[in-house]
């Protein structure tokens, strides 16, 4: 099982500058644990007190995970995960 995870500029210090890395997991939380194993330190930048950090947005196939189960959102082979900092519009 392979899930592509796109990493924002600010977090690439954890991925040796890679824009996208590959991970495994049946849920977002399992995927983040898997990422932590190969990119130590990244989990703490995404999660705080057992929940996604306030200014971190994560999307599975372009859908915001906060509306599809949060950290328990399900993943299947071939899904694309995008991590982005929250920005303003308007």
């Amino acid at each position: 099982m392979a899930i592509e995870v796109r990493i924002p500029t600010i977090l690439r210090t954890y991925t040796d500058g890679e824009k996208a890395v590959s991970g495994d997991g049946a849920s977002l939380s399992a995927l983040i644990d898997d990422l932590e194993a190969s990119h130590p330190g990244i989990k703490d930048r995404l999660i705080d007190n057992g929940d996604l950090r306030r200014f971190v947005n994560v999307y599975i196939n372009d859908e915001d995970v906060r509306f599809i189960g949060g950290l328990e959102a399900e993943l299947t082979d071939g899904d694309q995960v995008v991590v982005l900092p929250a920005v303003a519009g308007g």
Partner: protein
Amino acid sequence: MRYDNLLASVGNTPLVGLPRLSPSPDVRLWAKLEDRNPTGSIKDRPALKMIEEAEKGGLLRPGCTILEPTSGNTGISLAMAAKLKGYRIVCVMPENTSEERRQLLRMWGAEIISSPAAGGSNEAVRVAKQVAAEHPDWVMLYQYGNDANALAHEEGTGPELLADLPSITHFVAGLGTTGTLMGVSRYFRRAKPDVRIVAAEPRYGELVYGLRNLDEGFVPELYDASLIDSRFSVGPRDAVRRVRELLELEGIFAGVSTGAILHAALGQAAKAVKAGESADIAFVVCDGGWKYLSTGAYEGTVGEAEDRLEGQLWA
């Protein structure tokens, strides 16, 4: 239709059916043409409401200076209203916004302070807060946290939609200040709670997200996630593709952010078809495409347009 003056003509925009983009006779798409507002965007609604509420509350008085962080449309709307009402206006705007927006702002009499491109609107908000601290007598209406922004849609956009489309099942709009979605959702949660509220958020190039610490991100104070049912991130490729389809199939010339909204609306339509359900999906056409011609979004291949939008605030 006759109005006493331009400001009185804000809102009451047409809702038009899209027979060629709708996937079936039972799953229909409807476009709310907000480009028909006086300055050509949906922002005329919140801008006018924020000014009126500030006047009522005594915050805005004759001779006041208005200050606002804006990527363009809100500033243009505020500048128009400020001109007619006699206020001075200063806008803080990211430097990576289209030239048309700058020219329009200046035409309506706004003074512009540029904020750095990197960091996008987050930077504009930060700079505006600094300027506000230096000029305590200026009035920052602050669209991201001003209840009147959402109220304009709760009292205007929402009721107009239900009156024109009593069978509405979905409402899809862009997520910037979150004012449109918050206000329309508040109205429907009361008036027709089974209407699904769907957000389409533009996904920009990397420059816009900046290099600052993740803890310095920005979520508008108006945002209440419980008022939204699903939220999608739409990149420039899908936005450009859809905005061109909207013109090609239905003749509507819209701004690029509307392409992102249409993309999310079509996603909801496909879901309804798959589930064998009927649906009446209304979405917002935020503005016309005129202000974005110089971005190159409407010329060449979709791939070329996508490349040209890299680094720009296209929504």
